[in-house]
């Protein structure tokens, strides 16, 4: 393949973040690199920048959310932006207003970007085709949760020193997991090999078509063998379309325990998108153990979302000076 090395390649910055599937490895790396200085910034005593001063970010959470909503709100605040909040409990939704009417109402208040979470897969795509402003997907149905995958990748890169060629085991309800889909799209860009494990009804064979090098393994010990990264998915009682298996069965067969984790590589790390249910999908000894990255993931979420908001909402060119490398306002 003939590649010109004389001309500096210009990366296309995506206008929206609707999913990981449409991103290139270069774009992913760009966001992770841009998140890096924001990680340092979280330790600064004065956590406020003026980068997005005068900008407004609409947070449209049509589905209940605690951590993602707070994370986006905090990321916006630390960049100096104002936010407007729409929450699932709010009245317009209960009055039967359609998604697009609600979103157009928000848009009429002239925000500079909108963060959306919705229970329908494709809802961010649907509104992005109808709005002028950048749309950031904070989780849509069982489709994608791109900022979760970015913050997971940042965590993995920090801990493992690389993203390339990892052996990744994902445990739980793969069928209904947007976190798993986004992570598979992201890590497969860097050559990951995936082992998926969970109850058969949540592990359809079509999952193997999502990316190259995906296999399904029924037994958790076998699934963990040789893993560099273990992702534990939440058992989503509120999003189960299929009859769930008995929780006792789940614990018996699929809970990540210290004994089972020993089948993975000694330096394997454990990720969980939260909220965790101790004693269900994960043994507290693992959740609180040295291999767990659960709280780092939360902090990294802020850094990733600040990088995202900075680049999509400010309209700054990709090579603009990084705001966290300057003195905070």
């Amino acid at each position, binding site marked *: 393949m003939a590649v010109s090395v004389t001309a500096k390649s210009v990366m296309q910055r995506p206008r929206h973040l609707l999913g990981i599937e449409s991103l290139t490895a270069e774009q992913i790396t760009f966001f992770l690199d841009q998140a890096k200085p924001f990680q340092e910034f979280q330790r600064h005593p004065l956590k406020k920048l003026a980068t997005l001063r005068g900008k407004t970010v609409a947070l449209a959470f049509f589905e209940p959310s605690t951590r993602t909503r707070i994370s986006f709100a905090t990321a916006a605040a630390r960049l100096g932006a104002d936010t407007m909040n729409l929450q699932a409990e709010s009245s317009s939704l209960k009055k039967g207003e359609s998604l697009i009417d609600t979103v157009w109402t928000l848009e009429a208040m002239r925000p500079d970007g909108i963060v959306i979470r919705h229970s329908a*897969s*494709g809802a961010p795509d649907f509104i992005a085709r109808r709005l002028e402003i950048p749309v950031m997907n904070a989780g849509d*149905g*069982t*489709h994608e949760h791109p900022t979760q995958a970015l913050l997971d990748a940042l965590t993995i890169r920090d801990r493992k020193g690389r993203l390339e060629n990892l052996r990744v085991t994902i445990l739980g309800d793969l069928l209904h997991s947007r976190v798993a889909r986004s992570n598979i799209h992201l890590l497969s860009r860097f050559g990951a090999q995936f082992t998926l494990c969970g109850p058969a009804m949540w592990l359809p064979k079509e999952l193997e078509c*999502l990316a190259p090098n995906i296999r399904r393994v029924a037994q958790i010990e076998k699934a963990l063998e040789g893993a560099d990264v273990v992702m534990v998915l939440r058992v989503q009682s509120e999003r189960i379309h299929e009859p769930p298996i008995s929780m006792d069965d789940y614990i018996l067969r699929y809970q990540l325990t210290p004994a089972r984790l020993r089948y993975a590589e000694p330096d394997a790390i454990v990720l969980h998108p939260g909220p965790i249910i101790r004693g269900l999908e994960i043994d507290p000894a693992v959740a609180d153990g040295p291999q767990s990255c659960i709280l780092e993931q939360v902090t990294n979420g802020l850094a990733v979302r600040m990088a995202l908001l900075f680049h999509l909402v400010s309209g700054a060119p990709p090579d603009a000076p990084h705001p966290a490398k300057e003195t905070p306002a």
Partner: protein
Amino acid sequence: MILVKGGRVMNPASGTDALADVLIDGERIAKIGAGIAAPDAEILNAAGLIVAPGFIDLHCHLREPGQEISETIETGTRAAACGGFTAVCCMPNTQPVNDNAAVTRSIVERAVASSSVRVWPIGAASIGSKGEALAEIAGMQDAGIVAVSDDGRPIATAKLMRQVMEYCDSLGLPVIDHCEDTSLAAGGVMREGPRSIRLGLKGIPAASESICVGRDVELAALTGARLHIAHLSTRASLDHVRAARANGLAVTCEVTPHHFTLIDEDVVYDTNFKMNPPLASRDDREALLEGIADGGVDAIATDHAPHHPASKDVEFDSAPFGITGFDTALALGLSELVHTKHISLMRLVELFTTGPARVLGIERKLAVGAPADITIFSTEAKWTFRAAESASRSRNTPFDGREFRGAPMATIVGGRVVFRRAASANA
């Protein structure tokens, strides 16, 4: 009098295919032959065009009464005429449901007053299409229904389906079933497969259709009834139909243009790709093409299902199933089946004429004395479909902007020209 002059007259009933003139006197065909002289007749120049018996659509939704915001008999049949159809069978899922003679009569009367083409209502099998008790089928038959179906709300129990078949067989009516095991399909919005997994959309397994086709075929064997499978979409379903026919059963099936054109891999987050049955797998589409070519499939039917944007232009999960189909059916047949050499032109004409007629137990041919229901089309005219220009009241189609080779040119119903493509139209 109208003289359709110089066209290539194709008559699947007799297998004839020759240049001829067709003279129409009043509502009927007066003469067919070469070089007819009729100095008083209005001349309809069909040189270079195909002159075929009037197309029949076995499956559409005209939405009247009750959902006139999406379509009316007037607008729907105008779109049908533009698509080359001279008769359309409208499904009973109106509001109220067409489950009694009074509703059937009102549809027939509205059609007389406002329709461009013949409207042949299909009556509900059960009261309110609720799948509980038999509807007033004989009463509806006297009022004008041509078949019975609980389309969209498939009869869940084998017991009621058996009763419907036994009763309709005694009345001489075919039973049309939208085959779907709703327990398997519940909550699904597209075909279950790699694409549904990727999009995170809940899948409808292919087996949810074929399980029900299998049940119906067994019941057709039990009762001897005429069974017609609506919008058949999978290989396994077609295998059931073929096996039934090999056993001498009166089982027929139809395929929609969207199912022989598109597959599940085409689905994007655009609700114009949401229909039921959903777009099938590549292999299932191959099976449909085989059936269309070898006679396993009897008819092409549109399942024209107009929906107002307020309900259809929403996020994928929330949208109703269905797309419009009159405008593009013939053009898709020409583009996807004939120009690609899957089937002959005569076979395509058959799928729109004698095929559906056989399902209804009627004849369809161009013959002296027969009603002058005639579809005239071009296999070559180039045009671009613009949904915004459709006569239908709705715009929900995945084919907006598609370029076609071949188009309906004129539609004649009972000796009346109900549609003529303008010479300059969008070519």
